[in-house]
């Protein structure tokens, strides 16, 4: 009993502190730089993520130039890139650095930190009715570790031997031996140190998200009344907290191999005629440790997009989400299965075929919760009173891409087919559609939907629609043809396909893909312009609840201060999906249940 009282007072202290800070005079530094306000931290994550997305996207444009015509020279590139583009020709080492960094940046810095860092920070306290995160301090540290990771990764781009270039999966021995390639030298060390910082950032963030969701919900906000965004962000955080440490241990062993002469991953290797002293290690061990994170990572990227799309589809269909509990259940099932399928990335490593078939079964099982989610999204849209806002367009686009990309996952999940398709453009097409572009659509949907809450202004609608149409059409035009290239056996990561008789005929197709990629990249600049212009010059938001949504973030002032609600935190009396109920268009969560109200 006494501990209970102590706990309660402690909790009041936490709340009190957060509320108290609101009245402090905030300086530029405490408000915009070392801010402990979850909303500001979310914006910091978002803007850093946008900068990274620009860099990562630009890299893909440069390597698509190479793929479009392997023999072409682009003299202007030499001005920017120096010896990496001698005589305007992209060098092979540089090509590998580009694809490696493109993957690293987009997977970790944009779609992990930029996506869940932004929306977990922004939405969790606002949607569950809390003044801030459980520990605003850890939250601030989480951003600054990410910033540090960013600075280190950025600096690796400028070292003389170049950044890491052994692929974003950093398989040893390429990543473990400095002698292996120019990108295996200092660039690789910086990559590992940067990722260690990044993992610390993700863990601090994840700890906070889980604790906040489980402990800081407002009165009446039971778990089953939480918006699906929060459920998705919750499972994302659980995945991160349990899988990132395993990558960290893998990375530590790799650092030992690189710098202290151990042989965890190395055995019997000859580099340029020189026999390496390492013995007794196994490169496959690294793949196990890497993919134990690597596969959950796919869902760390995808789940927030699923959650936000669920919310946006319901709000803009003016209908309750179909099958709320099934949605939560399928998120849970995906989370569990995410930990049990990592070896499907390793079917060609000499894995025991029996073990392989177990992983095939578990992998194909993911189709079940995925199909439940797709069914529920479509039935939510069915006969809805749909408002095609830009956010809604992107959410529908997400569902489309998730279906297209998910179906090819069923191909790849079969070990028999995967032996043929492994490391071809079919894989590239699959994961770009289902994880890359789909999650980007979730990210865009989120930004378009919550921009008014973030900045108190609206984005320009025309630019938003142009952005949407070019992106969705472009994404399909880029990745659809890659399926055919992959089925024909065209391998990924190759610098020059014109050397092979069998792939020569794909020259025209590669050129087409590159042109579209350039256009799609340009369309993303429209978004960037729209985003930054609207922060300062966009149309001002004049109503508290511009989308007529039910969730709590729309009960805060148009530009909420630190502490979110000036008075008491609202109490919650219902689930967040009371749309089109009893003749009313929508009933926000904080409205008490009437005596004559029907059940949902």
């Amino acid at each position, binding site marked *: 009993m006494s501990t209970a009282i*102590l706990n309660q007072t402690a909790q009041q202290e936490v709340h009190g502190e957060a509320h108290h800070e609101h009245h402090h005079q905030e300086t530029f530094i405490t408000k915009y730089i070392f801010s402990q306000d979850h909303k500001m931290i979310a914006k910091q994550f978002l803007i850093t993520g946008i900068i990274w997305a620009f860099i990562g996207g630009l890299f893909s444009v440069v390597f698509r130039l190479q793929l479009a015509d392997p023999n072409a020279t682009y003299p202007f590139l030499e001005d920017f890139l120096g010896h990496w583009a001698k005589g305007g020709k992209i060098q092979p080492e540089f090509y590998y650095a580009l694809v490696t960094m493109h993957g690293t940046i987009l997977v970790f810095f944009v779609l992990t930190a930029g996506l869940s860092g932004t929306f977990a920070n922004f939405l969790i306290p606002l949607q569950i009715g809390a003044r801030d995160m459980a520990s605003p301090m850890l939250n601030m540290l989480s951003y600054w570790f990410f910033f540090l990771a960013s600075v280190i990764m950025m600096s690796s781009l400028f070292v003389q031997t170049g950044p890491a270039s052994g692929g974003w999966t950093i398989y040893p021995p390429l990543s473990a031996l400095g002698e292996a390639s120019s990108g295996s030298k200092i660039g690789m060390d910086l990559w590992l140190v940067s990722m260690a910082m990044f993992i610390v950032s993700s863990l601090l963030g994840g700890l906070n998200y*889980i604790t*906040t969701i489980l402990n800081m919900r407002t009165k009446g906000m039971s778990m089953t009344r939480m918006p699906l965004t929060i459920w998705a962000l919750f499972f994302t955080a659980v995945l991160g907290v349990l*899988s990132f440490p*395993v990558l960290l241990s893998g990375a530590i062993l790799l650092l030992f191999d690189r710098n202290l002469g151990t042989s*965890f991953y190395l055995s019997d290797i000859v580099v340029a005629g020189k026999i390496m002293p390492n013995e*007794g290690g196994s490169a496959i061990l690294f793949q196990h440790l890497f993919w134990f994170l690597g596969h959950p990572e796919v869902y760390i990227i995808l789940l927030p997009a699923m959650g936000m799309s669920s919310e946006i589809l319901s709000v803009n269909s003016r209908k309750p989400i179909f099958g709320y509990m099934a949605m939560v259940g399928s998120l849970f099932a995906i989370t569990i299965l995410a930990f049990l399928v990592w070896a499907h990335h390793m079917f060609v490593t000499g894995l025991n075929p029996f073990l392989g078939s177990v992983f095939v079964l578990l992998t194909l099982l993911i189709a079940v919760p995925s199909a439940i989610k797709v069914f529920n999204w479509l039935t939510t849209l069915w006969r809805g009173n749909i408002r095609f806002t830009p956010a809604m367009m992107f959410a529908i686009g997400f569902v489309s891409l998730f279906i297209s990309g998910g179906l090819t996952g069923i191909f790849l999940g079969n070990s028999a087919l995967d032996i043929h398709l492994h490391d071809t453009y079919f894989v590239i097409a699959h994961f770009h559609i289902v994880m890359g572009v789909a999650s980007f659509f979730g990210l865009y949907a989120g930004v378009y939907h919550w921009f008014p809450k973030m900045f108190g202004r609206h984005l320009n609608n025309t630019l938003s629609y142009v952005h949407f149409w070019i992106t969705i059409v472009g994404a399909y035009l880029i990745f659809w043809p890659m399926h055919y290239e992959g089925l024909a056996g065209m391998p990924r990561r190759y610098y020059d396909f014109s050397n092979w008789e069998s792939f020569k005929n794909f020259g025209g197709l590669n050129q087409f893909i590159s042109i579209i990629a350039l256009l799609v990249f340009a369309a993303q600049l429209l978004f960037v312009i729209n985003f930054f212009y609207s922060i300062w010059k966009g149309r001002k938001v004049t109503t508290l609840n511009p989308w007529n949504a039910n969730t709590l973030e729309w009960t805060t002032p148009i530009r909420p201060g630190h502490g979110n609600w000036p008075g008491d935190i609202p109490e919650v009396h219902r689930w967040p999906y009371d749309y089109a109920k009893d003749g009313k268009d929508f009933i926000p969560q904080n409205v008490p249940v009437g005596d004559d109200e029907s059940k949902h």
Partner: protein
Amino acid sequence: MEKEVIKPKNKIHPHKFTLWVGIGSIVMMFAGLTSAYIVKRNQAGWVSYNLPTAFWYSTIVILLSSLTVHLAEKAFKVRQMSKYRKLMAATLLLGLIFIVTQVIGFNEFWKMGMTLQANVSFSFLYVIVGLHAVHVVGGVVAMIVMSLKAFSQKSRSYSIVPVQLISTYWHFVDILWVYLLIFLIMIK
């Protein structure tokens, strides 16, 4: 229509909860390392070894420190502050002795020819035991910060939460050590 009843909840303090999730995360890290160890052990070139004797002293020391931190927490609860301070100081000292015995153990191991690079099995021992020691150092640093606060006249914190946090974490590194010890003895 049922009227909703909002029950007051006996919630765990958010910082404590954060710690528990963090512990889960650390467990995953060691689970990753020890599974890698098991996989490696079944491959060619594995060399068995015996643990250095200093590690047995480490075990006694860390078990004792778990007891002192537990008693310190109890003393704090009943506001016996001088007893609490003595017990905290004892825990801190035992923590430092633990680190020293670990270093002695590593030395012993190294001198018997079992160096970091000699074989993967030894490399694993250094990494796994070393990472655990890093976690103990983290606890010692946290304890020093808290002790400085407790001894300073200016700030008198009477919240039990930080004490409970340290205590929980300390028991955790203790249990983790016992697990690693049994693991390294059983599977070598």
